[in-house]
């Protein structure tokens, strides 16, 4: 019976493949295991190797910086207990004593210097290097094991918020030296959770770090599962597969909100979405045309149609959660008569045709469509051109665009980060100023804001700059992002953070 033998052999082969890949293993359930769904897996568990939010969120549970962000976007001590500006370009940090790394080694000033040197080493090529580019790394001075002086190349007022950024988190010197290139898979930090097991593409399992200086975490294990599909994340949340799910999509908001066992947290994120112009291209080099377009748009309609509860009309040129936000920035209300008048003055009474460039993203597509529809009322005939992300950045960086849609996330929460890259003439093109805006007065204010250490003065500079941006209609702010997190009711103490890096040290499970 050759036939039978063949069938049996083939079946054995296939079943063997199933067994061989370990499908029939039984997983033990941990009673105090908090499971979180993330929209992607971490790219690396080395904070100096990544620049994406999925990775940073996980890393924030395992590493800490000298200082860290509070949920209301302030800065609080973390690995540094205290600090002092000893002159206008040097901060002296007093480090916490008795802090242990996950490998048992003690945290000292050596680790701080090592981390920053590694981040800024051109050979290492960290994507986060620009975060600390202002630090004068060659002159960092270790006073003793628990005191370190960090100078900046120029006076730089926002240094603390940059040190609070995830890219500036401290890695263990001995850990990096031990694991070398594989440090991203063998992370050693000081945070409340340490790595247990990482199944790449699937899940990261973290264990509570019992020697954490801030006291042990509430749960034994923290698991981040990578679930790319929004609907799947919500279903897992509903059916108990995860306890916390980030990035609840608009279609699922009501479902989560109305569920008896789920709590929906909607919070303001730090991102601002805008519609930009190329100021070097006609007719957008004429401020009257830009003003006319600003008067022609109905922001409430745009936000309602495109974002629903996941956005609010933008109220200025930086996200309203950033402390130097100017609430009095003039926002152009909808006024079609005024708009038409300005168009006529600029010589475009009969309108013109132009292109709106976007990257391939459903929200941007919807934005472009609504804007395009609203611009028809000024006889502005628009065609929408969709680019793949890399090509889009390239093209807008070169200045081959007319109108474009983009967003800016000032992840440090500092106005310098929110404004300097976007509006300073030194940053024209791919460095951030994709509208090729050039105003010496704004340049001057942004430079003053960068070096001024008096916070009230700083605020005044930035607020004045925001008003000028509005007068010039540099771009049109469209919407501030809101993000939705779904949390199971058995989870206690969950506090959403505007940066998106919600912390789990104090979060418990009932």
């Amino acid at each position, binding site marked *: 019976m050759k036939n039978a033998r063949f069938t049996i052999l*083939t079946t054995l082969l296939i079943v063997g*493949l199933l067994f061989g*890949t370990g499908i029939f293993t039984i*997983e033990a359930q941990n009673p105090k295991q908090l499971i979180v769904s993330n929209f992607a897996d971490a790219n*690396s568990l080395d904070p100096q190797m990544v620049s994406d939010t999925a990775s940073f969120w996980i890393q924030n549970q395992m590493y800490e910086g000298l200082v860290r962000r509070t949920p209301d976007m302030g800065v609080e001590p973390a690995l540094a207990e205290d600090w002092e500006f000893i002159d206008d370009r040097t901060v002296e940090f007093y480090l916490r004593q008795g802090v242990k790394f996950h490998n048992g080694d003690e945290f000292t000033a050596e680790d701080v210097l090592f981390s920053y040197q590694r981040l800024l080493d051109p050979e290492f090529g960290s994507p986060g290097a620009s975060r600390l580019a202002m630090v004068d790394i060659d002159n960092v001075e270790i006073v003793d094991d628990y005191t370190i002086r960090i100078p900046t190349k120029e006076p730089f007022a926002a240094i603390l918020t940059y040190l609070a950024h995830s890219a500036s988190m401290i890695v263990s010197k001995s850990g990096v030296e031990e694991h070398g290139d594989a440090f991203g898979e063998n992370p050693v930090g000081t945070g409340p959770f340490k790595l247990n097991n990482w199944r790449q593409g699937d899940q990261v399992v973290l264990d509570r770090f019992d020697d954490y200086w801030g006291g042990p975490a509430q749960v034994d294990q923290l698991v981040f599962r990578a679930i790319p599909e929004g609907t799947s994340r919500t279903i897992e949340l509903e059916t108990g597969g995860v306890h916390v799910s980030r990035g609840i999509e608009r279609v699922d908001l009501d479902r989560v909100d109305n569920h008896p066992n789920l709590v929906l947290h909607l919070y303001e994120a730090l991102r601002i979405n805008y519609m930009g112009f190329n100021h070097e291209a006609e007719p957008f080099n004429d401020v009257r045309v830009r003003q006319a377009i600003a008067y022609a748009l109905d922001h409430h309609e745009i936000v309602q149609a495109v974002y629903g509860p996941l956005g609010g009309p933008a109220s200025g040129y930086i996200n309203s959660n950033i402390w130097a936000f100017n609430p009095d920035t003039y926002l152009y209300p909808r006024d079609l008569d005024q708009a038409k008048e300005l168009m006529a003055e600029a010589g475009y009474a009969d309108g013109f045709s132009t292109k709106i460039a976007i990257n391939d993203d459903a929200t941007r597509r919807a934005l472009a469509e609504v804007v395009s529809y609203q611009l028809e009322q000024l006889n502005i005939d628009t065609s929408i051109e969709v680019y793949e992300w890399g090509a889009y950045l390239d093209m807008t960086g070169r200045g081959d665009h007319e109108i474009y849609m983009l967003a800016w996330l000032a992840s440090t929460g500092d106005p310098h980060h929110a404004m300097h890259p976007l509006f300073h003439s030194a940053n024209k093109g791919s460095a951030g100023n994709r509208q090729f805006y050039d105003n010496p007065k704004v340049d001057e204010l942004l430079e003053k804001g960068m070096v001024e250490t008096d916070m009230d003065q700083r605020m005044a500079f930035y607020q004045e700059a925001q008003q000028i941006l509005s007068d010039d209609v540099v771009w049109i702010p469209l919407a501030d992002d809101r993000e939705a997190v779904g949390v199971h009711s058995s989870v206690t103490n969950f506090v959403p953070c505007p940066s998106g890096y919600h912390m789990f040290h104090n979060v418990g499970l009932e």
Partner: protein
Amino acid sequence: MLKYIAKRLISMVPVLIGVTFLVFAIMHFTPGDPATLLLGEEAPPAEVERMRERMGLNDPFLVQYGNFLFGLLRLDMGLSLTTGRPVFNEITNRLPATIRLAAAAILVAIFIGVTAGIIASTKQYTIFDGGAMFIALLGVSMPNFWLGLMMILLFSVFWNNTFGYVLFPSSGFDTWRHLVMPAVVLGTAHAAFITRITRSSMLEVLRQDYIRTARSKGLSSRVVIYIHALRNALMPVVTMAGLRFGVLLGGSVVTEQIFAIPGMGRLLVESVRSQNYTVVQGIILTYAIIFSLVNLAVDLLYAAIDPRIKVQYK
């Protein structure tokens, strides 16, 4: 036989070189700068330039391609641009999930396909035949993601709401229960092809003289169908199942995405999105190798089924 296998393996080399060249050229001439994507939209241009230099992106095309080929000889496909890990490891990390899913799905497909095909052919023009063919048509036409979502609604959401537990979890890849829904979703789509080919091949064989002879000898119809007819009808079925298995080993983008399975399909999509060209090259090359090997395996299986073919393999 061994000589034949060796010959086939050697003939794979030019195919694979062609594939690498095509992929490399496509990725090279795709607009967008990998260094910009790696550093993020806020990176200063000087830093981007430094990164381009480090990554060797400023070298001429042929030099870059040459370096790539040279690396391949040492199984070095470069480093992933997003994770910094060797591409070889990235792929071997994702292969088990894909192989597991493909094996389960092809079992589902063969089981459903061959059974339905036999029923349809032996009961030609009856309601069974019509039913089997209708289901086959439905299987081919039904989008994966739709069937996947319906199954999730039924076995995860509805089951949980009614019975208080989840029959099959909607995402993840820990236990056999995680495997059921994706395997069925993928299996049904491929089962349809196998049903059709089994049916037509069986019908052809059942009309042959030797089948009539077998029947006239008084053999039971079970023996006639399963021993005499099926084996001879299997050739095209094996070809089809083999090719389908090859397709499945490439990973299923949609199914892996919906069920959050860490397989090759998802890795490919993620890599294309982030222009992680080293990983894309590695995956396509792996696909090419898998496909060539599966084709070879199918040819060898012919010999197991039909001894006449074995004679030709010299």
